[in-house]
C-alpha cells in the first residue's frame, strides 16, 4: 500500500489491533453442517442400539440380539437332564447307574413306570413326590420320594425325565417342557405325595 510515512492517519492495514467481530455464518457451511448432523443421527439410529447395555457389535439393535438367542426349548434335553440328575437330585437315591438302592429305592432302568410312551404319571411323581408302597419289577418298595415342584423348573423336569428315559439303554420319547407345564397346572392343588394306586387310576396321557 502506498502509505505516506509523514501522514498521521492510522494505518489500518498493518499496525491495527486485530479485533473479533461477529460475522454471519455462510449459508453453505450451515447447510453442510446440518446435513452431516442428520447423517450422523441417522447412522446412530440404525446402528447404535440406543445405548442399550445388551447390544454389542455385530448386533445393531436389541431386536437383532433377541433373534439370535439359541433356542432353549429345543436345547439338548438329554444333556441338561444329565446335569439336573447329578445336581444332586435323583442321583442321591436312584444312583448314577439308575438301578436304585436294593430294597430301598427302585431302579429306573427298563421299568414300565419310566418307559410309558405318555409321561403323565412320571411327571406327577417328580412334581408331587411319591409315597410307597409300590411294586417295581416284582420287588416291593416302601419309601417316600420328595416332591420337586418347588425346586425344578418345567424345563428341568422335562430334561431330567428325558434323561432317565433315554439313559442306561432306556429308549422312550422325549418329555417336553409343555407337557410338564400342563401337568403342573392340572395338579397345582395337590399337596400330598402320590401313591401307586392313585397314579394307576390316571391315564398316562392325561
Amino acid at each position: 500500500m502506498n502509505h505516506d510515512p509523514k501522514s498521521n492517519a492510522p494505518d489500518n492495514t498493518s499496525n491495527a489491533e486485530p479485533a473479533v467481530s461477529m460475522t454471519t455464518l455462510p449459508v453453505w457451511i450451515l447447510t453442510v453442517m446440518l446435513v452431516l448432523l442428520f447423517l450422523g443421527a441417522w447412522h446412530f439410529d440404525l446402528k447404535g442400539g440406543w445405548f442399550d447395555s445388551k447390544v454389542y457389535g455385530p448386533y445393531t439393535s436389541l431386536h437383532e440380539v433377541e433373534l439370535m438367542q439359541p433356542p432353549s426349548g429345543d436345547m439338548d434335553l438329554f444333556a441338561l437332564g444329565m446335569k439336573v440328575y447329578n445336581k444332586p437330585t435323583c442321583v442321591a437315591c436312584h444312583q448314577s447307574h439308575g438301578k436304585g438302592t436294593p430294597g430301598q429305592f427302585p431302579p429306573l432302568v427298563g421299568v414300565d413306570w419310566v418307559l410309558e410312551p405318555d409321561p403323565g404319571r412320571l411327571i406327577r411323581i417328580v412334581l408331587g413326590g411319591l409315597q410307597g408302597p409300590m411294586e417295581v419289577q416284582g420287588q416291593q418298595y416302601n419309601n417316600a420320594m420328595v416332591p420337586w415342584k418347588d425346586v425344578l423348573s418345567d424345563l428341568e423336569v422335562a430334561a431330567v425325565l428325558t434323561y432317565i428315559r433315554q439313559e442306561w439303554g432306556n429308549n422312550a420319547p422325549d418329555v417336553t417342557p409343555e407337557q410338564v407345564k400342563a401337568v403342573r397346572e392340572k395338579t397345582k392343588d395337590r399337596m400330598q405325595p402320590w401313591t401307586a394306586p392313585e397314579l394307576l387310576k390316571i391315564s398316562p396321557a392325561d
Partner: protein
Amino acid sequence: MKSGAVVFFAAFLALSASWAGFVLAPQIQIGREVQTKSLGSGDLYPLAAPGLAQQGAAVFRSEGCVYCHSQQVGQEGARVEIVLTDAGTNAAAVEALIAKLNLKPANVEAAGPAVKEITEAGGKANIEVFALGPDISRGWGSRRSVAHDYLYDHPVLPGTRRVGPDLANVGLRLPDANWQLLHLYAPASVVAGSTMPAYRYLFETRKIGNAPSPDALNLPEGHAPPPGYEVVPTQNAKALAAYLVSLRAEAPLFEAPVTPPPAAVVSTNAPEATAQ
C-alpha cells in the same frame, strides 16, 4: 479480554459434553451391571476369581503383561446353523427335504420353520449359533468379550497391543498351572520361538536341602539349573499362574449369544488343576 465469558462458556460446554459422552453415558449404560445368568445352564456369571488369582491380577498388572497381551475377543458376525442330529426312520425323505430347504438362515427365528419341517418328516435338528471373526477363528474365544466379563476386574485391563496372544480365555486353552509356571520361567522351553521375556526373577534358584521341594519346576534339558539346585516359584509366580488359569470368558450370555457347549459329564470330587 473482550469475550472472556463467551470463551469460558464455550470451553465449559465442550468439556462437559465430552464428560457426558465418556463418563456419564457409559455409567448410565453399564454402570450398574450385576451377575447374570448364562444361557443354557443358567449358571451365574461371572464368578469372583479365587483369592490367589486375585493376588495374581496385581502381579499381572505390575509386571506389565498388558503391554503385550490383550484380554478382549472381537467378533465380526454370527452364523446360525441347523444341525441334523437324527435322520429318523425315513432318512431318504429327510434328505430330500434338506436338499430343498433354505439351510442358511439369517437368524434363529428364520431357522424355525426349517427345523419344524425336518421334525415333521421324522428327523431331529437343533439350531446352533456360532460367533465369527478373526479372533474366534484363532481360538481365542467362542464369543466376543462384553462388559460382564470384566465385572470383577479392578482395574479392567483389556489391553491395546497384541505382541503375544490374547489372554481372555487362556485358562481354557492352558488350564495347567504348572505349564504356566514353566512358561513364565522359560517361555522357550514350552513354546518354541516364543518372544516372551523370561520372568526368572519370579523364581528362586536354590540349593536343594534335605529333600527337593515339591514346588520345584520340572525343567527340560538346557533350561534346568545346575545339579544340586532347584527352581522354586515365589508366591508372586504362583499367584500369577493361578490368575492366568482363572481367565475364562466362555459363558454364553444374552448379549453375546452362542450355543452353549454340551453339558459337562458328571462332576467329580477331584480337585481342579491349581497352582502348587
